[in-house]
């Protein structure tokens, strides 16, 4: 394993310290328990957005803390969900009285730990809502799996709901918008190489010179299937079609009822994309794939969308939700209505995403 790190046990802490010295104007970093909050937190009267998850996906989530996006982020160990006390402390640090929205990627670890955190925060009198992101079409059914993983749509949701919170949406409105964004977003990823978890010291899986993993998540885990290497056009078309032709997706998720202080099961249905839809297209690098290759992907993606009557209204191209140094990419298409586009275009000022200001 060759990485620009010091002792493996200090990897996450030192990266956070680097972020703290680099961006004191944007974020404050708390070490032990680890969390990142915007420099001006808590923002009085504004709904606070908190996300978190394992480290190794940078710039997500810490790099998305700042004006117009997240109020707080809780980084766990590499690829390991953070713990409830991090989330709880972070929620206390950012709550400006209007409540806290947890944006949770659907992984067993993240879900279980955020559940405990929501209970702790609620017990403390903080208004909490929690929305699950589960957009990965590579996971086909939810009955025989832990359900679709939360991947690319997370970045777009954090941007869009962040702008809504900034614009004065209340907690329920933010939660509703976040649920909508999740239900409008679909993603699919692939890997050319594995990544190496620092503490593990060797690649999580190994791929032949002529093999790729299709339908991967973001934790260096093997994908849905392994196949022979193909051209960028073929891979792009394959992934875009899985997204575009994905059927309605129904599953039951646990949501927090803040009034009752209990978890309730709700059934959610995502409707498929259809001709005539506008989308935000997000082509993401898994960390080790350079942006130049993403443009080749985007070129073909635009073609496939067009041939299915789907209009790309906005795009985002680059490494935003990564798996350490893994080579590969993911594609996210998010159906975008006027509300979503308006908040997408709103100013954002974070270490990892910035425009309009």
């Amino acid at each position, binding site marked *: 394993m060759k990485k620009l790190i010091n002792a493996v046990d200090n990897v996450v802490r030192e990266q956070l310290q680097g972020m703290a010295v680099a961006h004191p104007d944007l974020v404050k970093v708390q070490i032990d328990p680890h969390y990142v909050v915007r420099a001006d937190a808590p923002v009085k009267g504004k709904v606070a957005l908190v996300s978190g998850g394992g480290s190794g996906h940078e710039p997500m989530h810490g790099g998305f803390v700042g004006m117009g996006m997240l109020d707080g982020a809780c980084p*766990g160990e590499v690829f*390991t969900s*953070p713990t409830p006390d991090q989330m709880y402390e972070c929620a206390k640090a950012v709550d400006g009285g209007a409540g806290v929205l947890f944006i949770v990627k659907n992984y*067993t670890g993240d879900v279980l730990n955020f559940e405990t955190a929501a209970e702790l925060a609620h017990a403390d009198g903080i208004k909490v809502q929690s929305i699950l992101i589960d957009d990965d079409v590579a996971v086909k059914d939810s009955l025989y799996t832990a359900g679709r993983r939360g991947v690319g749509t997370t970045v777009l949701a954090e941007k869009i709901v962040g702008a809504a919170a900034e614009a004065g949406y209340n907690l329920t409105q933010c939660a509703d918008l976040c649920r909508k964004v999740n239900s409008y977003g679909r993603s699919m990823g692939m890997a050319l190489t594995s990544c190496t978890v620092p503490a593990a010291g060797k690649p999580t899986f190994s791929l032949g010179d002529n093999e790729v993993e299709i339908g991967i998540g973001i934790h260096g885990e093997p994908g849905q299937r392994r196949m022979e290497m193909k051209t960028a056009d073929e891979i792009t078309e394959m992934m875009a079609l899985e997204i575009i032709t994905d059927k309605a997706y129904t599953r039951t998720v646990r949501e927090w009822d803040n009034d009752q202080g209990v978890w309730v099961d709700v059934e959610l249905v995502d409707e498929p994309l259809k001709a005539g839809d506008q989308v935000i297209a997000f082509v993401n690098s898994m960390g080790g794939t350079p942006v130049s290759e993403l443009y080749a992907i985007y070129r073909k993606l635009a073609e496939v969308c067009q041939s299915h009557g789907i209009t790309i209204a906005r795009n985002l191209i680059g490494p935003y939700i990564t798996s350490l140094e893994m080579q590969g990419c993911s594609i996210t298409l998010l159906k975008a209505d006027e509300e979503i586009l308006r908040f997408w275009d709103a100013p954002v000022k974070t270490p990892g995403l910035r425009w309009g200001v």
Partner: protein
Amino acid sequence: MSVTREQIVTWLEKTAVVLDANKQYLTDLDAAIGDADHGINMTRGFTKVMEKLPTVTDKDIGNILKTVGMTLISSVGGASGPLYGTFYMRAGTAVAAKEELSNEDLAAMLQAGVDGIVQRGRAELEDKTMIDAWFPAMVALKTAVDNGDTITGALQKTVAAAEQGMKATIPLKARKGRASYLGDRSIGHQDPGATSTHLILNALLETVQEGN
């Protein structure tokens, strides 16, 4: 026959040692069908437990186990953190204020802990999770205790059941946790969580055997 507070402490110390010795093994199992961190997670958690343990060894068993649970919850993360954390929390609650455990106490403790894991994680038997080791182990302990087995005999059956359950995860297709994303590709691999469960129960057996 009973399990003393000192033996509970020894069990936890042995657990820390055995998980550390199997760190790479558990991580490799997780690399095959998960995200290559289970051994790392468990060692991180039990290293913290070892730091905390000296501050509570004079407390009752319920208190000790709850401290272990809270330490795991706040240091492990991942799926295994809240699940194992819940196990020790619930186990501790089941034996609150006790300074030593009868065989019946032990069976009740295990049952409470396992119930907690199921409530949090909602896994069922044959979902290819730690439940596949915990559940048969719990049943075996209860049956043996009901039959009046010695503590050593009862725990031998418990560990044997856990081991069998662990091995039985190999041919299963995962339906919970990260491994479930792999679908058929999860078949043929042993579940890392069921493996750490077996190690933990075996540490208890060894503790009790040494005490005799």
